[in-house]
């Protein structure tokens, strides 16, 4: 099923229902969407509309209640736990709201960590990490630990880390929520440039207008449903 004519991401009638003490919570209710290869898209909507839940389901971090998700020709909703982890490692990059870098690793080690898990050799992963850090404007900061970097710089390291494994899809959950305007603009410029240069597909979840303005495809969610 992996052909260039098909969408990189296909979400087909996905439902996610949580059980809570107050009864079932219908976080995602029959969402379907397609994302083309090389897209720069955003899931938008108010807090609690199901953006993060859908993003987690697409990233294989959470199981769907029903429906199917295809990424690059693989139905990830049909994969077992171990296969899902393996798939995530090689095909999906993550950027989190709170950066989530490993504090005991320096910038290049944080970027190289995923490559180490993939079994890439030391020299190759070091070269690639330095190259990626340079492309996000952090040349010269390779040996600095997260605590020595600003929030914007940390998020740029996180972007470099997300791209380290050469993934088909980068999922970014509210990546600018903790950044000031200038850092947000810089980060968006970098991600857009990488999207163009490497053809990596980006999918954000956000309610930040600055991200919405830069996105080339918008998926509006409300109460777990697509509204536009």
């Amino acid at each position, binding site marked *: 099923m992996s052909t260039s004519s098909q969408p990189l991401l296909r979400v087909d009638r996905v439902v996610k229902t949580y059980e809570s003490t107050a009864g079932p919570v219908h976080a995602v209710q029959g969402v379907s969407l397609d994302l083309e290869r090389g897209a720069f898209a955003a899931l938008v909507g108010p807090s609690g509309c199901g953006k993060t839940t859908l993003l*987690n389901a697409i*990233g294989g*971090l*959470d199981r769907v209640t029903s429906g199917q998700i295809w990424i690059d020709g693989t139905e990830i909703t049909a994969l077992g736990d*171990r296969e899902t*982890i*393996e798939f*995530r*490692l*090689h095909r999906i990059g*993550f950027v*989190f709201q709170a950066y*989530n870098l*490993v*504090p*005991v*690793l320096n910038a290049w*080690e944080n970027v*190289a*960590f*995923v490559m*180490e*898990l*993939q079994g890439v050799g030391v020299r190759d992963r070091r070269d690639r990490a330095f190259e990626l850090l340079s492309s996000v404007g952090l040349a010269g900061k390779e040996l600095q630990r997260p605590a020595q970097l600003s929030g914007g710089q940390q998020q740029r390291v996180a972007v470099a*880390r997300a791209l380290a*494994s050469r993934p088909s899809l980068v999922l970014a959950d509210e990546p600018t929520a903790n950044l000031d305007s200038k850092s947000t603009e810089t980060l968006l410029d970098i991600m857009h440039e990488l999207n163009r240069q490497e053809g990596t597909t980006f999918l954000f979840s956000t309610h930040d207008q600055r991200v919405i303005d830069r996105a080339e495809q918008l998926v509006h969610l409300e109460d777990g449903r697509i509204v536009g």
Partner: protein
Amino acid sequence: MNLLIQMAWRNIWRSPWRSGVVVGAMALGVWAGVFMMGLAQGVNAARTAAALDDYVGHAQVTDSNFVANQEVQALLGQPELWAAALDAHPGVEAWSERVVLTAVLQAGAASAPVQVLAVDPERESRVFTAPRHVVEGRLGSEGITLGQKLAEQLGAGLGDRVVLTFQDVRGEIHTVLFAVEGVYDGVSNLVEGVQVYAPLAALAPELMGGDSLVQGRGAVHQIHFRVRNLDSLDATVAELRGAVAQPGSAIVRTWREISPDLSYADEVLAQSLLLFMAVILFAMAFGILNTMLMAILERTRELGMLMAIGLTRRKVFRLVVWETLLLSFAGMPLGLLLGHVTIAVTSRTGITIEGVDKGLAEFGLQSTIYPVSVPEYYLPIAVLVAVLGLLSSLYPARKALKLNPIESMRVL
């Protein structure tokens, strides 16, 4: 180096104080354990050395039947050939012949069962230190020498006459009158209470029932000898075993065969010391386990993120195990080094324990103890640390395995 191991090592130092306390405690525990091992080995080595010098000797030539049943008739054959062989061997420092009898000693109205060691005083004092501990008179060449305890028990003193009654080789009862010529201070009350020295030259003819063919050196149960270098004892004994062409039932035995309890004590001590060390380390393992549980709890969010980006559960397990092992091992080299240095210093200066001189003397020990270096225990200690580190990592690692990436990343 593997990034996972580097990460594990750096993670330890995220809470320098907390990890420092664990590392320090481990160093202290290992130091205490090693030092106690050295001290115990020192006590044991001193006890063994004192026993060899006082009453066991380094080795002996005797008749195998005498070893089996202590019968008075089981005399050593061709003692003059053995004596010549001992004289000729360069590794032998001195030797001393003995007749060993069980007898009854009577002094006035009092009597006591005794073990008589009939010896040549001069030769005996070259092999054993016991004859040098004569506190009154001397180790007699004509009279009998009693232990302090026995002298007190019998009410006998220097110059008093005592009667020794024993069975000769023909099974006939002999009585010999001796004067008390010396009183010795023995290695223990037990020895002092039963062991007496008599002159070999006077007793040997009596033992043979007055047989004129057997005189002096002819009646011998044992020849004890002392070697110049105890480390080469086995080689010396092996050479002596072939020194007499037709040894008959004569055998040459090392101190380990003469007094197996002494060498058993070495083995028992080795096991006990390792057990002692294991108890110390077992207690420490709980501290390590607690530290690791706290570390996992604090890093729940980070571990969730790592699992989200592709760290498998197997690698999460491995990360926690590495971290625990490194934490366990961090203090061990320091503890070993401190223990080694402490023993190296105190083995020269000695450690004097005040107020227990008499108690120690009962075991043939001086009040100053010289610890002995114990490098042979370092590897077993390292293995113990590894095993206990591994065991204490299992519970925290299991906790980490149960983390769910999404729920973990929600933890603040």
